[in-house]
């Protein structure tokens, strides 16, 4: 099966290892992975900031870039949500584009849902010694219904024990531009999330959205709490020994 990867701008720029993990997982599942060159950002900041003109322009680009693929996979719940839920809404007054947007929405999948629901990959073997709290990102959870899929895939990882957070359905306070527009409120929210994580006794945090993970990891490290924060793809691809955690330092000497 030929699968186009929509890398997302955060993964592309900040943490390409998540993209590499996604490539490995897709290949292991028998897919041929294609990364169209004409991709950048899904336009979520514009969609959520009322900048409709730019949101529409970016969405058109993405729709063009991925028009010829039967499956588009995104290692992020919120970026996949933008494409699947918000692109069609952007073109309510343009029936032709609306149809194309819905068509792309139907062909687009968040990584763990694609593996679990479409490819029917079961538990994936690997090793990650941790008691990990799973952070369900809001758009993944509520726009796309992602909850069981990553947990089912992780069930095969040796050494991993998953903790459910008390406030599992509560936002971590990232919210894209929200966290820089309202830093005080965002700080309070991420603190609540961090407290919840600490109360669970976890020594690692896993999630499917790099934005939330950077927010949580950034706050943890500011509070001086060591924690292994990881995108779920890195754990599933068994890459954790080679790549430092989000916000963690690189082992001396490695490139």
């Amino acid at each position, binding site marked *: 099966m030929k699968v186009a990867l929509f890398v997302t701008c955060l993964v592309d*720029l900040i943490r390409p290892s998540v993209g590499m993990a996604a490539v490995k997982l897709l290949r292991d599942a028998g897919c041929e992975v294609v990364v*169209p*060159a004409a991709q950048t950002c899904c336009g979520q900041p514009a969609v959520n900031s*009322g900048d409709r003109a*730019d949101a529409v322009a970016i969405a058109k680009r993405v729709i063009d870039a991925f028009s010829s693929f039967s499956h588009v996979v995104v290692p992020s719940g919120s970026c996949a949500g933008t494409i699947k839920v918000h692109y069609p809404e952007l073109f309510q007054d343009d029936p032709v584009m609306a149809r194309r947007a819905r068509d792309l929405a139907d062909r687009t999948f968040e990584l763990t849902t694609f593996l679990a629901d479409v490819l029917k990959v079961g538990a994936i073997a690997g090793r990650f010694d941790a008691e990990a709290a799973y952070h369900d990102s809001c758009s993944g959870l509520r*726009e796309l219904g992602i909850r069981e899929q990553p947990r089912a895939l992780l069930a095969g990882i040796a050494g991993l024990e998953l903790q459910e957070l008390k406030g599992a359905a509560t936002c971590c*306070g990232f919210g894209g531009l929200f966290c820089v527009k309202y*830093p005080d409120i965002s700080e309070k929210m991420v603190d609540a999330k961090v407290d919840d994580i600490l109360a669970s006794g976890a020594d690692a945090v896993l999630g499917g959205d790099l934005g939330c993970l950077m927010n949580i990891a950034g706050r943890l*490290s500011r509070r001086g709490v060591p924690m292994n924060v990881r995108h779920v793809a890195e754990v599933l691809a068994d890459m954790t020994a080679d790549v430092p955690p989000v916000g963690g330092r690189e082992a001396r000497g490695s490139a």
Partner: protein
Amino acid sequence: MQSTARAFTANARQALDDAKLQVALARFPEGFPVKRRLAVERLPEFEALRDDAKEIKDHVLAHLDYYLERFEAKVAERGGQVHWCSDAEEARTLLVKLCRDAGATTITKAKSMIGEEIGVNDCLEEAGFKPVETDLGEYIIQLRHEPPSHIIAPAVHLSKDQVAEAFRAAHKDLPDDRPLNEPQEMLDEARAVLRRAFLSSSVGITGANMLVAETGSIVLVTNEGNADLTQTIPPVQIVIASIEKIVPTLEDAATVLRVLARSATGQDLSVYTTFTTGPRRSGDLDGPQHFHVILLDNGRTRMLGGEFREMLRCIRCGACINHCPVYGAIGGHAYGWVYSGPMGAVLIPNLIGVDEAKDLPNASTLCGRCEEVCPMRIPLPRLLRKLRDQQFEAGQVPPLFRYGLRWWARLARWPALYRLATGAGVATLGRLGRRKGRFRKMPFAGGWTNARDLPAPQGRTFQQWWSAEKGVRQ
């Protein structure tokens, strides 16, 4: 009520620094949300009921004129009188007139958000009356001269001590050394004081949870029974309700009631649910001699014809507020006007103007928890995005964000340029951040780095890696 929504950011800062408020807010997630979840789990048809309730309100909103006229005719048939007011000013003037006509001095009042909207207490006090709130929470905040911080739990921001303090300051005729440590002691004291107010009141003012078109009835739900005393003891009852409170039939009212209390407090039904139709009839043991309903528009017809119509389905259950992490961080007063949380962030700009409440649509992560729990299936995040669209179009977005976004969006549309611009930056940051894996400070990123470290980029973009790997491009 005077709005302070313009000062949202400062209000929020103040709320975050208010230790007592933070203690009260910290209790919140364990309260209503848990009770709601349990109530919903007990009722398998809850989701279907939500659909029914939504449909009822959608139908009413599509035929609002018809149902309002029907309601008016029914109220008249039962000997009551309906008054139409287009805005708060009109409603206040009418209210004062009705109270004067009744020769009122003490006026008892049940909790009403519309009452808050039009500032009933202030206007009655100015006109020389003595309005007394009879809902315990409302009574407490009336003593403290502050607005409610939650639509169904107006004094939720307060501690026991603060309530005791307010009681000691207000009830001067009681012995100074009386014990006021336990909630029950305060409750007893409030009950005694309010009992006197009920008995001396000549006008009772209530809101309405619903207006039933087929019978001309008003529906009121409370947990304290205070609204019933407010309606039955004084000779004159005045109901203030906004026009979207209509439901067609008693059966429809029952459907809405089934989702209302469950969503609000997790009760199957509120302790008191009262249907009132017209004034006292001959043979009735109690009830008012005069029954007035003030139907208030105050911005609703404007919403009805626009993009925010769905907000008019709101039944003021507070579920969206109870589950909102932003509300959970800053409480209700920071929003600056009568409403708060997600419903407030949509309603306030609609009712007092987006200009007056620029921050409210933006101070949300759009996490979607509110929509998930809203019994009326109001797409609150979508409505917040719509407000943001309007603000952007009207040029109300701060220049830094506007240009930042523009710049990013331009780049995002030109992949080659994007690659060039980002690749170099990522390489530099990656080199600088390699040793620690994070930055504690970053120019132009104070919003982020004041509270968190910024994880450093790994140093090479995914796209560079893919090209180096000679990965397939199409």
